[in-house]
């Protein structure tokens, strides 16, 4: 089953012609409308009209998360704001998030791409799709929602949280497809078990999961526990949100929507392309976006590219499931959290270089983050304890608020944070991904 067979199963040569046309028109537009790109191209002495082939992509400058932040909030928009009908932002605090916009056409295109991913994952218009991604600035909820509606499925905008109620809905509304992060699916599986509901009482058939890396072992557990076919899908807000790529039910790599995105995999150190099949950093250029076009965005996600000879018949290249990140970003419940952000917040609160450790656990299915902070001889007993409790609460609130992810904070004695080699260990990730 395909959503747009003429595009998903396109002949390679035809696809490359279309990509070139769209690539050139995108460059003409960003050069004319986005000063950031014009300056960068000018500095390198590249005029859009010199670009005559897809391989010329390598001559263009990269765009990084820092570039997006540096142009906060609207600096990279290629259309006036009045043409923008939707604004989303990536995780992070206000100044550190990427603000992205969509025109009416962008929303229509996005919906189509998500519909493709859903169809590839087994969903049809006869399905009841429960979208348990968080709705809001985050692109996950709305992205999947619009795609599922476009497909014609019955969409339940359940959003995240309140798992017991969600399971009740799943049972009563006869949900056939669950759309969420894989860790949320694990939580659903655990909760069903705790509630004593047999899987046979549910109507689930398919699960489409994304927003965080997850292992084959985790897939197996989810599939067994919920009795579903679980597929992985990928996207990021700087590029569009969900809809960049998704697995078909063969589950052997994510089909990239190559008529809308040019993908490269580079060595994050040398910045040179790696041979097909080798792991490197994924770099994406958008081909059809109007409001927020992106040229060579460094995703920091590690993957590899494979030729499109999939039994399902789709001809686009596939990317392997994510093999991690090039930066130190932690992915907590689908949100990107930077340890250095935590450090700088602690520095702000304490007014001096903090001594700390971030510990991540997966309790059942949920990620739990605990920040251990050096008590610096603060008394841990007696009259003064109230004050200490207040300090902990201040740090906890501030971190939770700024990171957008609930964290637990504990004050510990210095020696707890000591390590055998004297080098601080700032992050301990106990999760088995």
């Amino acid at each position, binding site marked *: 089953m395909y959503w747009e067979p003429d595009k998903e199963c396109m002949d390679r040569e*035809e696809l490359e*012609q*279309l990509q*070139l*046309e*769209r690539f*050139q*028109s995108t460059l*003409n*537009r960003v050069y*004319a409308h986005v000063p950031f790109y014009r300056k960068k191209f000018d500095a390198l002495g590249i005029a*859009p*009209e*010199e*670009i*005559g*082939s897809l391989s010329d992509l390598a001559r263009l400058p990269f765009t990084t998360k820092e570039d997006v932040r540096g142009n906060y909030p609207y600096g990279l928009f290629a*259309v006036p704001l*009045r*043409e923008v009908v939707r604004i989303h932002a990536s995780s992070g605090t206000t100044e550190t998030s990427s603000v992205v916009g969509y*025109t*009416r*056409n962008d929303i*229509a*295109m996005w919906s189509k791409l998500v519909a493709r991913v859903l169809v590839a994952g087994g969903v049809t218009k006869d399905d009841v799709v429960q979208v348990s991604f968080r709705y809001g600035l985050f692109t996950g909820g709305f992205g999947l929602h619009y795609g599922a509606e476009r497909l014609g499925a019955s969409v339940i905008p359940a959003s995240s949280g309140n798992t017991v109620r969600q399971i009740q809905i799943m049972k009563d509304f006869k949900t056939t497809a669950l759309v969420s992060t894989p860790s949320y699916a694990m939580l659903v599986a655990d909760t069903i078990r705790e509630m004593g509901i047999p899987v046979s009482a549910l109507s689930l058939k398919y699960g489409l999961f994304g927003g965080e890396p997850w292992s084959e072992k985790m897939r197996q557990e989810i599939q067994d526990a919920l009795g579903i076919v679980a597929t992985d899908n990928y996207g990021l807000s700087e590029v569009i949100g969900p809809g960049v790529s998704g697995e078909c039910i063969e589950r052997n790599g994510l089909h990239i929507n190559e008529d809308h995105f040019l993908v490269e995999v580079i060595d994050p150190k040398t910045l040179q392309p790696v041979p097909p099949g080798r792991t490197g950093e994924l770099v994406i250029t958008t081909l*059809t976006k*109007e409001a927020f076009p992106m040229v060579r965005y460094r995703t920091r996600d590690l993957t590899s590219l494979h030729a499109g000879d999939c039994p399902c018949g789709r001809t686009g290249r596939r990317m392997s499931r994510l093999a991690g990140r090039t930066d130190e970003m932690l992915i907590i419940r689908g949100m990107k959290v930077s340890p250095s952000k935590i450090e700088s917040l602690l520095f702000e609160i304490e007014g001096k270089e903090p001594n700390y450790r971030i510990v991540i656990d997966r309790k059942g299915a949920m990620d739990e983050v605990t920040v251990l902070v050096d008590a610096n001889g603060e008394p841990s007993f007696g009259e003064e304890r109230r004050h200490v409790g207040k300090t902990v609460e201040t740090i906890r609130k501030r971190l939770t608020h700024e990171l957008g992810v609930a964290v637990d904070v504990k004050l510990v004695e210095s020696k707890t944070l000591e390590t055998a080699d004297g080098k601080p260990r700032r992050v301990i990730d106990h999760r088995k991904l």
Partner: protein
Amino acid sequence: MLRIKNVESGYGRLKVLKKVSMHIGTGEIVTIIGANGAGKTSLLRTVSGLIPARSGEILFDAKEIGKMPPEKIVFLGCSLVPEGRQLFAPMTVKENILLGAYPQYRQKRGDRVRDDLERVYGLFPRLRERERQLAGTLSGGEQQMLAIARALMARPKLIMMDEPSMGLAPLVIRDIFTIVTRLREEGNTVLLVEQNAKAALAIADRGYVLETGRIIMEGTAEDLLSNREVQRAYLGRDLDSEGTM
């Protein structure tokens, strides 16, 4: 059917087209919209071989035609209905139509011409009624029909039309565009260059927006119609006055 990559062309020292890439699939109606002077006519003239492509490739049915003389391109099945019709005013309607059959005669297929003429008259009954009239005495709409009829006599696979609606009354424009859709139904592929973007996008499958010799947008007709920039620049919508009290 037609695949163009990085085509550049112009007149003298003036470069009009800058790395233009586009394509048309068999059976499609594709339109190129753009303001006056954007390079739309130059693009059609380049594909027809009337002005040489300085660089890039033009593949018609997988054959490179970039360096071919115009008549060979017509022989291959790619015909142009030029801007301003370019009829021979002192000749009759029928004579003008038969001029279009020149490639058939050249290729010793003169026996087909009678059938082709019947087919064309079937499409344009008005031309049959006036076959003895001088082309110069026809109305604007009839002249446009005559120009299309003449092009069809070469049995083109791809028919390129340059501003067929120019100078015509709205009702006549509708007739002409109905004919374009009919041509497609009969298996033709159409490349339509128009300033009347609204009418063109209404019948096209896809379109390209050409701006100062560069393609700045490619999309389905539906996408282009709902693109605000296209609406403002080419569809004459005054967005500033919309939604205000």
